[in-house]
């Protein structure tokens, strides 16, 4: 990328990517981290994101898509501002993960991989997130919530809803 203005990314992320591709013995080692960090900023891997990453690394868009479709955290359409990932794998299942997942579905009125109409929340059943001894565990974006009980779900959602409102107010101010 010659000029920052051409980038789909913020100047900070574009600068980070400039360093990242030079860090490894091979440029394309930066691919998986770049896809994830790009998704964190843009929300999903749009055509423009894929195109720019392909260009930055020096590989084809098809090659980027081929890699991106392998990894379960990478997505090609937007999710909610707060993506709720409920682990239902064995350790969490034994401690009530499906009751928890049901409660989220009821409270949000969406199913697996659904997005709320206000786009604040999305919900996803996920595989083991490495919090087995603190089950049942969930992640909201990257934040872990350990030993969560269904009755704590409404309060948790209220907290994130408040954050989302504060964020949009700050943006409009």
């Amino acid at each position, binding site marked *: 990328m010659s000029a920052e203005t051409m980038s789909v990314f913020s100047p900070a992320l574009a600068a980070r990517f400039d360093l990242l591709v030079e*860090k*490894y*013995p*091979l*440029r*394309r*080692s*930066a*691919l*998986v*981290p770049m*896809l*994830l960090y790009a998704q964190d900023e843009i929300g999903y891997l749009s055509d423009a994101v894929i195109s720019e990453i392909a260009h930055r*690394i020096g590989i084809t868009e098809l090659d980027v898509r*081929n*890699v991106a479709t*392998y*990894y*379960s*955290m*990478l997505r090609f359409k937007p999710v909610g501002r707060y993506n709720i990932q409920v682990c*239902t*794998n*064995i*350790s969490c*299942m*034994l*401690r009530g993960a*499906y009751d928890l997942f049901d409660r989220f579905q009821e409270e949000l009125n969406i*199913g*697996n991989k659904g997005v709320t109409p206000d786009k604040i929340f999305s919900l996803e*059943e996920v*595989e*083991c*997130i*490495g*919090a*087995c*001894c*603190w*089950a049942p565990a969930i*992640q909201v974006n*990257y*934040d*872990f919530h*350990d*030993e969560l009980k269904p009755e704590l779900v409404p309060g948790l959602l209220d907290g994130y809803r408040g954050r989302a409102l504060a964020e949009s107010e700050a943006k409009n101010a």
Partner: protein
Amino acid sequence: MPRLVSHPDEVKIVTKRFGLGAAEINRYVELGGYESAKKCLAQGPEWIIEEMKASSLRGRGGAGFPTGMKWSFVPKQSAKPKYVLVNGDESEPGTCKDHLIFLHDPHSVIEGTIIAGLAIGSKLGFIYLRGEYRYLIEIMEKAVADAYAKGFLGKNIFGSDTEFNIITQTGAGAYEVGEESALMESLEGKRGVPRIKPPFPAVVGLYGGPTVINNAETIATVPHVIAMGGAAYAAVGTPRNGGTRLFCLSGHVERPGVYELPMGYNLRKMIYEVAGGVRGGGKLKAVVPGGSSTPVLLPEEIDIGMDFDQVGKAGSMLGSGGVVVIDDTTCIVEFALRTISFYQHESCGRCIPCREGTDWLKKSLTRFHAGFGEAKDIDNIQYLAENMMGRTFCPLGDAAAMPTLGFVKKFRKEFEDHLNGKPCPFAKHVEIAMV
């Protein structure tokens, strides 16, 4: 922040700095940190490898390969650069020990990586963490930056003329990437599909160079082995199974948590004393001893020492240290279904026995659990699983087949109880929604 637990039977070696603020570099140094790396720098590679061999430390990722021997396989002379790769892709269901190491003691991972680098003559190490561990990646990145600032990493480590660098790397969601060759593929910016072996990574690994790949817990143990001396570390465990291990007790126990216990610690004691027994005074039904891929043990089979050899002799595996305890309110068919659903979801699809096998097993078990099974399905499930064993590039096929075989063989009666349209006897039907 994940809860820390403790028990008087614990021998705290790897966990001894947990909860003491050792993620901060000055605190780590104050607690004796980086002394082992300095000692190794003075002693040289042969001495390091001999200490590691004497420690009988075996790989904590699951396979249990002796670490010292693994390092000794790397050729001394190599036209291509050599690499150290730390596997922090921790994804085996039931396992969350590396999570705590990255959180509480990131510098032990860095120090262990430096020592591995010195042992094999490498100038570059990678610490690869699963993408879901973003907050831990940030902790590791800060720790690495602090180590550079102190001169512990870089062109002249600890004021010597030896160079060593570390790059932290994030994954983006893939169990398969925990397999060493798939991990290298991912780090090279590709799909995490395994490579056929040989050649082994010690000869042709990352970027084609000789590569040592160790689990994060193994690497975090290395500085302690050096500090204690290999023989002293070995003496903590059982023969050929040196030291301690971080056991992740989860499921239906009273006090779940990560406990550091000597290798060979009795499994029954681990469940009933260390973890406080089955929750609510319930009845034990089964134990998955080493992460979801290891065959299940019955209550009468748990009077065993938890080391690689004894658990192997009992027909299962010590695996990754994830001890999942199951009480008698649990439907084993449902548990088997949830287990296979995971492997079906994670199979990369390259090897047909794994791709097709996991898919058919999931379909069969889904139908079976819903009450639409037939008697022949039980044998069919077993036949399918048996035919996956040993027929795939990487161990994912085995990892899916082994637990399934265990459930069918040891809980055949429970499978039979689901037959002929009967509902699940536990009446708690769960829709497995994963696709």
